[in-house]
């Protein structure tokens, strides 16, 4: 019988089968940031095992609170920095060269099809967009990953989301993934790999695939995953050209990873997105998803464009297209955080930063910032934020605050209106094609 892509990756990485369906797998990359790694480092030091399994396979960034906001976050950075130095970890991205981990590491070419990746961060599932098995883990799994280069998982069961249909203008991968989570629920993919397949996904660029995979965890998924194809190849080619005779050879090896036609799935969900309208959330759970139309007119205090879900250049371009020539409502404040220094520079060169500033946005350095309510835009009690992030939990952006998740287009339009609304990119399209 055929295998899914996740099964193929597991079979190629198996180290041990301690009991039942538990597989201990070899890791190709271990990613680290300053929030969950210092405790693992401290524990390794305490155990007299301050070593790493392979310094070239460990990639490190300070991203969640950057630059440090207080003595405690400064100490987290210091622990990480000194550890990277003494263990010869070359790929350490300090303040100035740092960006949101799940945007920065793909941009550096650190994720490849067929890889196994862990990180002490639940949105590690993002990297599955490249055809990798990438899972968020806790600090203890991370600690063992750093020390031994292995991690234990259940042998993967997969839920396949088959997506077909051409998206309406003004409707994006973010609207699709919100719709999917709304359909299957926050528990809908629990303990399973979420494979995104079908023509709509095949036509998506890497940024959109990352947006899809990024939110697999909001449905409880272990990893998101897409089949590696020509789009993946084009993105990665600058990083892999020396290892491959030519593109055709590389593509063939990518395609051999894709799930076999007779692979068996735990569940298959088919959705048609041809008529999908822009989506947002209501309340404190990411599966409480409604059309933007239904929330139209709800006033917001803050708009946030950024994060590992939607802080890439493609996202900033869309938001800027909506904002161009407009200013934000006097009732809101708006913040944009380009996810990496490279994205920031691109946005500068393309004139997007100007558009954001003229519209009245605060432009911050690349960081997670407001997304997790630790710095750079924490909400006050009772405030409401329209955000392009991935999690609307109670208190996420600040105690007593509420978040409505949405696409960058919707967020930009909401900033202008001062209340939740669809962007013209969507409504213009509607009036053109009745």
């Amino acid at each position, binding site marked *: 019988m055929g295998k899914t892509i996740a099964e193929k990756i597991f079979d190629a990485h198996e180290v041990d089968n301690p009991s039942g369906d538990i597989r201990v797998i070899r890791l190709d990359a271990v990613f680290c940031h300053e929030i969950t790694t210092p405790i693992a480092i401290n524990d390794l030091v305490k155990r007299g095992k301050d070593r790493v399994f392979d310094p070239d396979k460990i990639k490190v960034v300070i991203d969640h609170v950057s630059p440090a906001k207080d003595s405690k976050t400064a100490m987290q950075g210091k622990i990480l920095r000194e550890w990277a130095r003494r263990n010869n970890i070359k790929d350490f991205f300090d303040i100035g060269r740092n960006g949101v981990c799940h945007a920065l590491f793909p941009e550096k070419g650190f994720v490849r099809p067929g890889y196994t990746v862990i990180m002490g961060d639940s949105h590690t599932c993002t990297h599955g967009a490249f055809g990798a098995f990438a899972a968020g883990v806790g600090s203890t799994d991370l600690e063992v990953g750093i020390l031994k280069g292995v991690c234990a998982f259940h042998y993967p069961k997969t839920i396949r989301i088959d997506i077909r249909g051409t998206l309406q203008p003004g409707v994006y991968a973010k609207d699709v993934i919100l719709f999917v989570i709304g359909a299957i629920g926050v528990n809908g993919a629990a303990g399973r790999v979420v494979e995104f397949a079908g023509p709509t996904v095949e036509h998506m660029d890497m940024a959109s695939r990352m947006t899809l995979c990024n939110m697999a965890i909001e449905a409880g998924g272990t990893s998101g995953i897409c089949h590696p194809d020509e789009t993946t190849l084009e993105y990665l080619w600058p990083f892999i050209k020396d290892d491959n005779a030519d593109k055709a050879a590389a593509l063939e090896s990518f395609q051999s990873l894709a799930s076999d036609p007779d692979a068996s799935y735990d569940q298959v969900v088919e959705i048609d997105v041809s008529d999908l309208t822009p989506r947002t959330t209501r309340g404190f759970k990411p599966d409480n998803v409604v059309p933007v139309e239904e929330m139209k007119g709800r006033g917001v205090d803050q708009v946030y464009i950024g994060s590992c879900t939607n802080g890439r250049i493609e996202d900033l371009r869309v938001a800027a297209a909506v904002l161009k020539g407009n200013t934000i409502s006097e009732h809101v404040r708006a913040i944009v955080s380009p996810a990496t220094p490279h994205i920031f520079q691109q946005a500068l060169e393309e004139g997007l930063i100007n558009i954001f500033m003229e519209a009245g946005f605060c432009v911050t350095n690349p960081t997670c910032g407001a997304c997790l309510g*630790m710095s750079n835009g924490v909400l006050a009690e009772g405030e409401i934020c329209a955000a392009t992030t991935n999690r609307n939990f109670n208190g996420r952006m600040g105690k007593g605050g509420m978040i409505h998740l949405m696409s960058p287009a919707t967020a930009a339009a909401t900033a202008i209106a001062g209340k939740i609304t669809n962007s013209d990119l969507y409504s213009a399209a509607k009036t053109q094609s009745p």
Partner: protein
Amino acid sequence: MKNFSGNILFLDRDDINTDEIIPAKYLTENTREALAPYLLEDLDMEEFDPAVDLAGRQAIVTRSNFGCGSSREHAPWALEVNGINLVIAESFARIFRQNMYNCGMLAVEMDRSVLDRLFSRFAGLTTTVETDFEGGIFTFTSGDQEEVVPFSISGFDRELIHAGGWVDYADRRY
């Protein structure tokens, strides 16, 4: 092996997430002990007051998808430093569940029907659970009410508990 018996805190809600268990603003702490005062600070349940309701509890009984959301191991640590090493639920989020066993703590899934019975018989009363780990038996007691419920966990999870967690286990084996 840690203690898996004691007074129960009943949390009758699905999808209690890690931001509720321990808010992100406390993730700057570099020791587990520092998390102790903040456990369940943002729990979205009416009439729940952590200061009152957590006092003297060593176990949690709750509903489905407990621990969903972030990967933060601070969530089980915040439980651990409050003396809570056992959570019984209909289901857990994968990362949270793994984090529990990685720390040598016990996370046990139980059928909805059993949980319904436990909630209807015991919630609101002072209830204790006595855990026979090797035998795989929970005994719930409140006053003269008693209910015995068998449980099972995988061989791997059992070994993690015996080893005291994943670091010690992996260090010996790999």
